[in-house]
Every structure is written in structure tokens, then in C-alpha cells.
């Protein structure tokens, strides 16, 4: 599924809303997560997962092909940890639904 497919799914289920509003909603959600990470904040969406930023110190790396030493600058990396509910849903057996 792509972002545009996500937008059309939501549009189908919300026929009372304008397409441009649905687009704006989806853009806003990802933009809010992104700007939080840019600020260094953590984004915690219970049941879905949490986004955070991890720091990597600068280090001296080596080009594995040439053996040449290169300086690798410190950087920050976005990181996602799957929420408990989603992790469990991914691993539940299909026929477990029939128990309900």
C-alpha cells in the first residue's frame, strides 16, 4: 500500500469529506511525526508503535575495499519499535479469530 492508496481507502470510508481534506490529514500525520523527530522528540502511538531518534557518535571507519580510513560524522537515525498490540496481531493465527 502506498500513501496515495491510503488516501483513497480513507476517502472511500469517509464520503462526507473532501479529497483535499483527506490528503491534508494524511500529510499532517506524517509531517507531525517527522517534525517531532527533527526536534529530537519521541512519538509514542500506543498499540501501533513508537518512533524515536538514536544518536551515533562520529567514528573512524574504513573503506572495506581499499582499507582507507574515513571519518564518519556523528549522526542521528530515526528508529521505530513496533507496539505490543500490533506485534501480537502480526503473529496471531488466522483461525484464532473464530474463538471470538
Amino acid at each position, binding site marked *: 500500500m502506498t500513501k496515495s492508496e491510503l488516501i483513497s481507502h*480513507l476517502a472511500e470510508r469517509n464520503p462526507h469529506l473532501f479529497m483535499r481534506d483527506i490528503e491534508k490529514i494524511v500529510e499532517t500525520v*506524517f509531517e507531525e511525526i517527522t517534525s517531532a523527530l527533527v526536534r529530537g522528540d519521541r512519538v509514542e502511538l500506543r498499540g501501533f508503535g513508537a518512533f524515536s531518534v538514536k544518536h551515533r557518535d562520529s567514528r573512524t571507519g574504513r573503506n572495506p575495499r581499499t582499507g582507507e580510513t574515513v571519518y564518519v560524522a556523528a549522526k542521528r537515525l530515526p528508529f521505530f519499535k513496533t507496539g505490543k498490540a500490533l506485534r501480537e496481531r502480526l503473529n496471531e493465527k488466522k483461525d484464532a479469530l473464530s474463538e471470538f
Partner: protein
Amino acid sequence: MSNRTVTRADLAEAVYEQVGLSRNESADLVEAVLDDISNTLVSGENVKISSFGSFSIREKGERIGRNPKTGVEVPISPRKVLVFRASHVLKDRINDADTNAPSSDGSSSF
């Protein structure tokens, strides 16, 4: 750097401000976005959000683990895990912010 935690309520508030729906409906739509992504992943399909990142399911085979405290070997059953790969756009935005962060030692030259 503020170091607070952003939650669903913050996302809903942003949608409320940006789109002009009611607060309730804004919250419902944030939930609908997360639900659609979750359901798609549970159905086994990957989700790709351009300029943000992609979520994909990786199947892990069975392996032997060990209880680090007791040393007892236990089989870890095969499972599915969700992997998020951030897009370059997201990575670059996060690192551009780092250029003026206090943690850098000023040697941001490439």
C-alpha cells in the same frame, strides 16, 4: 531540543488545526490512518509512505535462544516482525537539524 513525547492527541490536534474538522473527527481520522496501516500490515502487505519511510513484514525462522540468566536453551518459534525503513528524505531532515545541535563537535565537514 525539547525531548517530550508526542502522542495521538498531538497528531489529532495538528489535524484539527490544519483541516478544520471537529476535534472528535480529527482524532477519529488519525486513528483511521493508523488502523489502515496496521490492517494492511497484518494482511501481509507492505506499506510505503513516500518521503517518510516504509513498513515491511519480515519472517523470522525458528532459532535456539538461551535464557541469559539460567543458560537454559529454549527454542524461539518462527515469527513475523515489522521493520521500518526510514526514507532518505526523513533521514536527511533529522540530520539537517543536527548541524546546529550542541552534540556536534563542529566538524560537520564532508
